[in-house]
């Protein structure tokens, strides 16, 4: 048998549609666009990383997504993670909070404190962050539809504890456009939703210049069915929509662009993901420089949290997810991420247990301490394969972005439901490929045994009494607060929304007076209305 016979080698095409050769050479780099734009770490176009020394100077931040039940319980989990060496927090809110409802709203029944921490007023934030030094631990809030209220609460809580908001660091997810594509915690129609994101960017630029008010998420778009190229392309189109909006309101690009950050997904082909991030970093820097004429290099940085990998994990043989998490973390480090978070091995079916959360944390720590990944920057640079793939991925991301623009832009596509439709078609395709075994998933469609059917699974215990506790606290807070001050702040916010002024100063004032998330949202709905979802099938 001739081992070199090419007929034995099956063609391989990665998820982004790029055909992978069995061997790469310098000619492949040259043919895909050359190596001129690789550059040096910390220098434009930042292919190799946004900082010169990367992890030699400071390793990635470890920021597991956490929160459930009452603020007291969540505070306990936060402290546990910090005691175990976690360097950042990433707050999970329950669904009522995420869609702007109070715990006592009839629509909240059965959901209070279930998939995240319940928050009604500033009181809850005071409890959740008690004893946590906000100078040492940066906090990321996974909040979108209700972001203005929750960002305001974070600032109010910090200020009350004596921190200077002007020096406060942290991040809010606050990427509402992706919520219309995946994840679904929208509240207001698309246009006013963008306006509110703009309000937070403008407010932070002026009052909290070190805070990152938006983390644009390719993550959930990919989880919803998009491939890696579309993940980056749609995220960049969304980020551009926010930038265009803020520029139109008169702010200069270098006064806010450096505070925008990104959130991306890792699962699947290792090299495709690494090339995706290197390509995207270069493309984002180029867009900021050439299209937006940014002068400050920081405005050109694609800062990111990368990890997760929810769609790569399986309910079957859940311990395998620990191994997958380790590979995703490896990809994240090889890609020059700023922050890492991993889905826990039990997260495909429940709120992570303490043990599962710790294993995710240890996975990142082992990578950091034992494997030499922090010793040198962008260790895959110069690889014939990775550089070729980086060039090819960049070209494809550009092409998808151009396609979106040619069809009238991302905002129009989202309003019409076209992106949602395309992505959900691909989700079905993804499932079919798994069912047919074309995409292999260990323990799910291969290497499965009979005993897998009787796997012992531990579920996070949900306490029905959380809702009652939360409602009792909300009632007490409402009874004790200064009613006139709350009313005045809400009236001011209503007027500001109505007159298209920035609502954030009034929102901050209202939360300081213990106005609730539900009250704030209702008041804004009066002005903006509610989103009507276009349902496609």
């Amino acid at each position: 048998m001739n081992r070199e016979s090419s007929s034995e080698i099956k063609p391989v095409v990665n998820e982004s549609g790029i055909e992978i050769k069995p061997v790469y050479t310098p000619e492949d780099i040259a043919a895909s666009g050359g190596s001129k734009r690789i550059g040096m770490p910390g220098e434009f176009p930042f292919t190799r990383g946004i900082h010169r020394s990367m992890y030699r100077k400071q390793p990635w931040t470890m920021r597991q997504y956490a929160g459930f039940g009452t603020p007291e319980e969540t505070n306990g989990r936060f402290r546990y993670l910090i005691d175990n060496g976690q360097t950042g927090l990433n707050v999970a809110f329950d669904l009522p909070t995420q869609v702007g409802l109070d715990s006592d709203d009839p629509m909240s029944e059965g959901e209070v404190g279930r998939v995240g921490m319940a928050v009604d007023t500033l009181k809850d934030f005071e409890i959740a962050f008690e004893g946590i030094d906000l100078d040492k631990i940066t906090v990321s809030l996974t909040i979108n539809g209700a972001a203005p209220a929750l960002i305001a609460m974070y600032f109010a809580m910090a200020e009350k504890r004596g921190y200077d908001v002007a020096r406060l660091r942290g991040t809010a997810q606050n990427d509402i456009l992706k919520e219309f594509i995946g994840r679904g915690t929208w509240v207001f129609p698309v246009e006013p939703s963008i306006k509110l994101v703009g309000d937070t960017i403008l407010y932070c630029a002026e009052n909290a210049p070190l805070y990152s008010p938006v983390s644009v998420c390719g993550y959930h778009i990919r989880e919803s069915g998009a491939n890696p190229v579309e993940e980056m392309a749609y995220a960049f189109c969304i980020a551009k929509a926010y930038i265009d909006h803020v520029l139109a309101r008169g702010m200069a690009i270098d006064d806010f662009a450096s505070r925008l950050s990104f959130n991306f997904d890792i699962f699947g082909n290792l090299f495709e993901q690494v090339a995706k991030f290197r390509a995207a970093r270069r493309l984002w820097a180029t867009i900021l420089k050439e299209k937006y004429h940014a002068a400050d290099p920081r405005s050109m940085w694609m800062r990111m949290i990368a990890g997760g990998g929810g769609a790569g994990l399986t309910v079957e043989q859940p311990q395998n997810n620990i191994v997958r998490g380790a590979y995703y973390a490896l990809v994240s480090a090889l890609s020059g991420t700023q922050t890492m978070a991993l889905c826990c091995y039990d997260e495909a079916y429940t709120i992570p247990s303490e043990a599962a959360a710790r294993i995710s944390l240890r996975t990142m720590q082992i990578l950091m301490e034992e494997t030499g990944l922090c010793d040198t920057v962008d260790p895959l640079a110069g690889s014939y394969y990775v550089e070729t793939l980086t060039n090819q991925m960049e070209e494809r991301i550009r092409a998808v972005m151009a396609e979106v623009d040619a069809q009238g832009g991302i905002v129009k596509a989202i309003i019409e439901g076209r992106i949602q439709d395309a992505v959900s078609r691909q989700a079905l395709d993804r499932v079919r490929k798994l069912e047919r075994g074309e995409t292999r998933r260990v323990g799910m469609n291969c290497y499965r045994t009979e005993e897998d059917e009787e796997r012992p699974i531990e579920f996070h215990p949900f306490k029905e009494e959380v809702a009652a506790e939360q409602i009792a606290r909300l009632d007490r807070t409402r009874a004790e607060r200064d009613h006139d001050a709350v009313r005045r702040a809400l009236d001011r916010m209503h007027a500001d929304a109505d007159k298209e002024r920035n609502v954030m100063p009034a929102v901050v004032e209202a939360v300081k007076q213990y106005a609730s998330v539900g009250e704030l949202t209702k008041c804004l709905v009066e002005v903006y209305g509610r989103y009507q979802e276009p349902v496609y099938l």
Partner: protein
Amino acid sequence: MVVDRKIRVLVAKPGLDGHDVGAKVVARSLKEAGFDVTYTGLRKSPEEIVRRAQDLDVDVIGLSLLSGSHLSFCRRLRALRKEHGLRDVLLLVGGVIPEKDRQALKDLGVDGIFPAGTPLDCVAEFIRTNVS
């Protein structure tokens, strides 16, 4: 007179959870399998789902639940089904449904449970077998 019509399915996303990748995948696959499928979109109350099911005169209601609120939701739905004479409509639940809750769901009137990872064809097959 027997009217030969496609089996009508309402795929619904109850409660506040916005993760509807699975709901849409199932809805699309059922459509491809030849059913007449409507998807409700997000955040539907039990009342809205029942009303929609009546308006569309469906044979099947499929609920997608991932947040863990399946028991409390199906409890609320049971009374409404009785009240509106929808007991003949096949009720299916899919998503993150722990083994320990499955009997309780059946006791609440759920006819079929399809946890995440169920092959899509199984859902179609179950509907064909059980809609008379």
